[in-house]
């Protein structure tokens, strides 16, 4: 079975991947009909329980029909505006999450869709729609009620421009397709590794692991089959630089994967694309086809006998946790995206248990440039511990949100000056799992040794309610917890409850204390990075902006979590009672 799975997945086309088959069913029937599950499981030779588990795990699959037009509004603090969702719900007479009786439309919210520089955005039947405003929503309501098919909606509504505001080392460096591979082949695999080692390149996803070491460990791991996986599951709210890299620099991403394959001796690679970016799929497939035609992929690449490598794209289905590399591998293996116990790490036990390099999109782009320009060229920028440049996704309360590439070591203030975010009171660096910093720390440097970031810079102006921001993040984590370990599964909703209580003006100093205690338990005891970092925004808020919370606390010892008298309302009605004993004060 394992070998069959391997051969069925190792083809160029991944059309038989469970996630893709479920996506097809979801698109055809607006849900996954129960009777379709057993035949699908039989065909794919998977246990029914696994198919069922996958359906329930990913938020883009549904058991009951969604509307023929299914709208998902981003609830991110940068690309979301839920008041617009409410407006559309009212004009279409829909409740969030409940399909309208005629089956025409359903409306709901979803976690950040990576459109943070495009204004309020949504997904409609998996397609991106940006720059939303009340007028646009009125037009949408009209089209929905008229039953106009999505293909007939104005094409410009679906445009997603790149917004590269400040290109730097990588984005200014135009490369001929194949230049990196040709240079690498000339040098040989060991020298390529040495060059990457000299460049000091570290993983761009946020954790900053040394890239050449990762490749070397994978190359040295005893096995006959190795894999390269590109992590394009860019789910951290406020991050969209991979979207731009995949849209315009996909050739360099794939070439980076091929370089890695050359270095480690892999025959096959996967690009795991987040479901929200499905609209990029045609362009990406076209780029792959071009590269195959140019003999940059396929067999005997660039006439090197035995240098065979090809890439397949697997598209996710709405699960933030799949950005964690071992959860991503589980998802690639057609399972629920639950993080694995590490060690062993993917470099020795990755995809299908084989040595696997999992690299961020930007890391692979950087590798392509380093292969051409050399390690010294790259190392000349940045700091000693953080070589090169960082492609930043800047969004929020600033004049020009978009992509900014700066050398590592650039201060946050410089980034704010560049994007017109001078009146910021706070910046969330690295997304909700990163660090919330205030003005006093704007002089800090963006670098692994100071303020680490996977690329997300969310700017919050003076008018922003920071508690609302942190509340948004706590809802995000409670929604995205995979449910595997108790500290995170139970902790994230509890945290959400405390933040909601304080935000609604019912919190007490005791609640704040308990919340901070819980946050520390989650940090120490959670299984993976999600639970370990979920409380960071809150702890940062309490440390750096204590007044934001304390100003809203009640000056009393304790306040219940719910309205006690209201909790008796139903039974009062059922028993027709209204005596004193039927009330609680």
């Amino acid at each position, binding site marked *: 079975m394992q070998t069959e799975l391997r051969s069925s997945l190792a083809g160029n086309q991944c059309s038989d991947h469970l996630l893709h088959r479920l996506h097809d069913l979801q698109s055809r029937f607006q849900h996954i009909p129960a009777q379709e599950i057993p035949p699908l499981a039989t065909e794919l030779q998977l246990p029914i329980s696994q198919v069922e588990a996958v359906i329930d795990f990913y938020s883009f699959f549904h058991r009951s029909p969604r509307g023929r037009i299914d709208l998902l509004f981003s609830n991110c603090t940068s690309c979301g505006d839920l008041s617009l969702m409410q407006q559309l719900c009212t004009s279409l007479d829909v409740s969030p999450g409940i399909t309208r009786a005629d089956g025409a439309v359903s409306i709901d919210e979803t976690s950040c869709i990576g459109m943070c520089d495009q204004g309020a955005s949504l997904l409609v039947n998996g397609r991106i729609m940006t720059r939303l405003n009340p007028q646009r929503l009125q037009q949408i309501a009209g089209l929905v009620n008229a039953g106009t098919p999505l293909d007939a909606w104005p094409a410009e509504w679906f445009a997603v421009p790149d917004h590269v505001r400040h290109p730097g080392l990588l984005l200014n460096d135009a490369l001929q397709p194949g230049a990196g591979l040709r240079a690498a082949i000339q040098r040989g695999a060991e020298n390529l590794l040495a060059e990457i080692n000299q460049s000091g390149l570290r993983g761009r996803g946020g954790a900053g692991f040394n890239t050449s070491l990762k490749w070397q460990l994978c190359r040295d791991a005893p096995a006959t089959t190795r894999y390269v996986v590109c992590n394009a599951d860019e789910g951290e709210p406020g991050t969209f630089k991979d979207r731009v890299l995949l849209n315009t620099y996909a050739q360099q991403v794939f070439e980076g994967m091929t370089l890695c394959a050359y270095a480690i001796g892999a025959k096959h690679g996967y690009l795991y694309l987040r479901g929200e970016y499905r609209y990029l799929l045609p362009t990406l497939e076209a780029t792959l086809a071009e590269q195959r035609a140019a003999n940059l992929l396929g067999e005997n690449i660039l006439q090197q006998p035995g240098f065979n490598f090809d890439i397949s794209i697997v598209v996710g289905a709405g699960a933030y946790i799949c950005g964690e590399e071992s959860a991503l591998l589980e998802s690639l293996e057609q399972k629920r995206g639950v993080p694995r116990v590490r060690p062993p790490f993917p470099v020795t036990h990755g995809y299908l248990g084989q040595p696997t390099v999992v690299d961020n999109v930007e890391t692979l782009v950087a590798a392509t440039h380093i292969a051409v320009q050399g390690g010294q060229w790259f190392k000349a920028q940045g700091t000693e511990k953080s070589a090169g440049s960082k492609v930043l996704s800047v969004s929020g309360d600033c004049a020009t949100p978009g992509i900014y590439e700066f050398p590592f070591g650039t201060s946050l203030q410089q980034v704010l000056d560049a994007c017109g975010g001078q009146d910021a009171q706070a910046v969330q660096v690295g997304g909700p799992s990163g660090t919330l910093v205030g003005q006093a720390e704007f002089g800090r440097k963006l670098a692994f040794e100071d303020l680490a970031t996977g690329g997300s810079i969310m700017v919050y102006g003076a008018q922003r309610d920071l508690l609302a921001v942190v509340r948004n993040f706590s809802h995000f984590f409670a929604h995205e917890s995979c449910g595997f370990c108790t500290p995170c599964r139970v902790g994230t909703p509890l945290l959400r409850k405390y933040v909601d209580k304080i935000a609604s003006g019912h919190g007490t100093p*005791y609640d704040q204390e308990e919340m901070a205690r819980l946050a520390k338990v989650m940090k120490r005891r959670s299984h993976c990075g999600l639970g370990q970092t979920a409380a960071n925004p809150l702890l940062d808020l309490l440390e750096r902006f204590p007044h934001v919370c304390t100003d809203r606390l009640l000056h009393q*010892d*304790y306040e*219940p*979590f*719910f309205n*006690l008298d*209201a*909790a*008796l*309302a*139903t*039974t*009062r009605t*059922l*028993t*027709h*009672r209204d*005596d004193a*004993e*039927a009330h*609680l004060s």
Partner: protein
Amino acid sequence: MPKIRIATTSLAGCFGCHMSLLDIDERLVGLLEHVEFNRSPLTDIKHCGPCDIGLVEGGLCNAENVHVLREFRQQCKILIAVGACAINGGVPAMRNHYSVQECLEEAYLNGVGVDNPMIPDDPELPLLLSKVHPLHEVVRVDYYLPGCPPSGDAFFNILSDLLAGREPSLPKAMLHYD
């Protein structure tokens, strides 16, 4: 030296925690030299006087539970949530998957073998809350004694700590939730 005064009660619980309290067995004799029981099913005292420690088993399912819990909070210097139901709602909270109306209709109108179907409305009966809640959602709780039930040893441990003026701390072996 006056004896430490303890009150105990069971709200939406099964008295299993109280049974487990008695499992401290012969050590109870020694303990009683230092403590006395106020309101408790063991003494049949109906209302709580000023106490040092309140042990509350069970969660909150109705209005009376809320009144009793508030009395305990008011009278006890230290309030301990005892057992799974007090801490998380436990078995009674399994009804939280349904509305309280569905529960009452199933029990008193549509259930198998129901005679003279009607939802009881006697004012003597405490009204049910819409959901079952753990104690800490209605009053401040000082300590939690987990377990279903907590073992006799766990009871003895937490009481011994408090009697000795120590911050209660359960050894890992006693810290379990089932």
